[in-house]
């Protein structure tokens, strides 16, 4: 059972991006995306317990400081 179908692709592109693509193109996109998303599910198997995503608070603080500096 594919995770993504051509129908889903067509709907996302129509509703979120405002353009139409052919069924053949939608099926090809669904195939590529579905395969990668299936593999992404396998990432759990390499042991991710306890690993945080690498988005640190220091970067958030520094970005906020840059925004403040740009405004002043």
């Amino acid at each position, binding site marked *: 059972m594919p995770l993504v179908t051509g129908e889903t692709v067509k709907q996302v592109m129509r509703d979120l991006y405002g353009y139409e*693509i052919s069924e053949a193109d939608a099926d090809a996109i669904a195939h590529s995306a579905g395969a*990668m998303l299936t593999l*992404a599910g*396998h*990432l759990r198997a*390499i*042991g991710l317990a306890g*690993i945080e995503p*690498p988005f640190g608070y220091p970067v958030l603080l520094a970005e906020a400081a840059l925004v403040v500096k740009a405004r002043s």
Partner: protein
Amino acid sequence: MSIPFQELLEFDVATLSGKLRARDISPVDLTEAYLSRIEQTDGSLRAYITVTDTLARKGAKKAESELAAGKWRGPFHGVPIALKDLVYTKGLRTTGGSKILADFKPDHDATVWTRLKRAGAVLLGKLNLHEFAYGITSSNPHWGIVRNPYALDRIPGGSSGGAAAAIVARSAAATIGTDTGGSIRIPAALCGCVGLKPTWSRVSRYGVLPLAYTLDHVGPITRTVRDAAMMLQIIAGADRNDSTSSRERVPDFSAGLDGQISRMRIGVIRELNDGLSDDVARSFNAALDTLRSLGATVDHVTIPSLPLTGVMNGIITWAEALEIHEDWMRTRPQDYGDDVRRILEIGMMTTATSYIRAQRARARTLAESIAVLADRDVLVAPASAIVAPKIGATQILEAREDRVDVVAAILRFTQPFNSTGQPAIAIPTGLSPDGLPIAMQVIGRPFGEPEVIRVAAAYERARGALAPPPEIA
């Protein structure tokens, strides 16, 4: 007596630097030699999108008067360089290789260009690339197909294809590229020059058009390892405009250039030592023999999760690139080339959960890589399974009758080190029987550029000079 243009073009940056400082050659003559070479070769190569000849001549004159007055800004003073056309140059067109940004003139310089300009470098122009750096062929539908100087019917690799082609064709002395999945190392490998992807955050990304924020790296593409080390010295280091740039101390990258590697331990990555074409396998094994002959200890290591870095890189790039391009994909999808629009469309299907999981998984692979580096100095791997394919080829037939997907056969070797952010250099190991370049990578610990440079430089000395490409008309 002035040196003939052709001879000037043969000097690497290290040699040029000494001659410029000693005033044996003039930055004005040198710049004219390069501008003339661009005119001679770029009709075939399409390495440049914009040639900044007026600016280059002005910069060369300024360098000449400063050098005459005894003011030396460092090894790039008066050296003609070029930038991938996604590096912002204030008031100068920066297209990203796209139609969408065809008339975009940034209001500020990228930090890498600010630093090179301050060091006295002369800007020859902006280099062609795969559209928005999102691909590895550099067959650009808007600005021309970049061609490989060793064989004009073959790709130069990408996305920094113009940068590597210009180095090998002698139409720039040094260049700056970017690397999200291999875009510095792949063109360097397929064109036969040196490409250094530093540790992530080592070089500021400020003012560099992003492809994927958390995977993008900026670095040099040059003729020699020494030139790459010298260029990295100028562009590396913390930048207050890039909050992700590292505050790690910047070492002397040239310190180990002449060092021996007789006590060094080198690991060959098992997961990247299969599926090679016969020519690449032969060249890589010969390179390992050379490293052994220099006294290094070479053994095999395993990084079990490395084969999944393709998924990590793929998902992360799909999501981050689409976030950057979302407005244009809504308003101007017809202005993208077919291949880039298609991959952005695939990215629309990325789920938030897969993105977060891919980001988390990077730490696992990095941990495994650091573990094998605990008792080794560097790792090595081929830079690609194949030589440069013909323009337009999506699959190639290998000697064993296997059909090989071109993109997979190349990206598989480079993208793991975008996921892990480790420094990696691509260095030529020779030419195939058809006369096409082959290369290996040397990979280090995070912020371990000095070891990477030391091993690559020792190998380069032992290898000797590569046969030059055929003359380009």
